[in-house]
């Protein structure tokens, strides 16, 4: 299917393009992943608007997550999410056993350290989609063995909206304290 390969190849070029511009000093080193994630965010917003144009209204958060796992994932990656788990308190884990963007890379532990670059865009995609549907969240990804990967979404309740879009801070309510995260959103666990 030619259209599948198109997105895959474009995505790979995008990642290497961002990193190349970082080497040349245009982007501060370490901000590449944030940049990719923000790209994914904007794309996710637009995509969700298009995909939900004809669907019925969503009942609740779980309905939205199921939509993301089934219809959204199928339209973007031509397959569904293999496993969705939740603790019913705002944390959802989406597991994809054969993530399309990583299948071409390796089938085990090789290149594991580079996987985070290729997951940033997708994390942003999920976050953008959820944000357009009215859910503020933080999405992280982890890979233990390629090409399987897990996306973890933490929904936030009652976080104030920072009016200034220029700031890259994310206020996270953890253990009752407000923490400012300046690290990129991707956590890589080996």
């Amino acid at each position, binding site marked *: 299917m030619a259209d599948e390969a198109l997105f895959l190849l474009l995505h790979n070029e995008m990642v290497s393009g961002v990193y190349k511009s970082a080497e040349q000093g245009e982007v501060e080193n370490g901000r590449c992943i944030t940049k990719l994630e923000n790209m994914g965010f*904007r794309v996710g*917003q*637009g995509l*969700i*608007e*298009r995909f*939900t*144009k004809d*669907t*019925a*209204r*969503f*009942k609740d958060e779980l309905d939205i997550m199921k939509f993301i796992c089934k219809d959204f994932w199928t339209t973007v990656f031509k397959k569904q999410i293999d496993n969705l788990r939740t603790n019913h308190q705002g944390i959802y884990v989406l597991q994809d056993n054969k993530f399309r963007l990583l299948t071409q890379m390796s089938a085990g532990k090789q290149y594991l350290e580079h996987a985070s670059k290729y997951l940033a865009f997708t994390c942003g995609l999920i976050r953008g989609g959820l944000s*357009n*549907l*009215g859910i503020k969240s933080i999405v992280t990804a982890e890979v233990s063995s390629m090409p399987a990967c897990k996306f973890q979404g933490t929904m936030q309740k009652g976080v104030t*909206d920072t009016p200034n*879009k220029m700031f890259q801070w994310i206020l996270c309510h953890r253990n009752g304290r407000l923490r400012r995260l300046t690290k990129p959103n991707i956590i890589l666990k080996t």
Partner: protein
Amino acid sequence: MAVCIAVIAKENYPLYIRSTPTENELKFHYMVHTSLDVVDEKISAMGKALVDQRELYLGLLYPTEDYKVYGYVTNSKVKFVMVVDSSNTALRDNEIRSMFRKLHNSYTDVMCNPFYNPGDRIQSSPGGPYSRVRIQSRWALLPVSDPVQVGPTSCVRSSPAGPLITW
């Protein structure tokens, strides 16, 4: 044919509002603002209803002596409100629905426009080639993915889309 249409963001501020220039526009702005309460009521009522009536089109929100107000909410909580002249009895429900569909399609195109920042005012030029929904005064409506209309990024935020937009 609508007398006034408005696109309202999920935080309840207007993204785009256009009415026929011959009338007192403030009156329409006020009507659209008051209809937001009715929209919220309908959405919350729908959430509790067991009936699988999960349509995006809300129908007639409330009638006044001269006008009727219709509403539509997208899945991304963006509301479209349309004010129609009461004397226009030929207008059917289906036509209103199709007008809202066209509005929704145009809005989706705006979202996908790379020069548009979600949350900003929507710019549109009257009588543009991309007008789809008809308004009584032949004003054009929605801006679609024409980068020329949106203008260079520095201008998008500064120029207002029309009279008295802020509430």
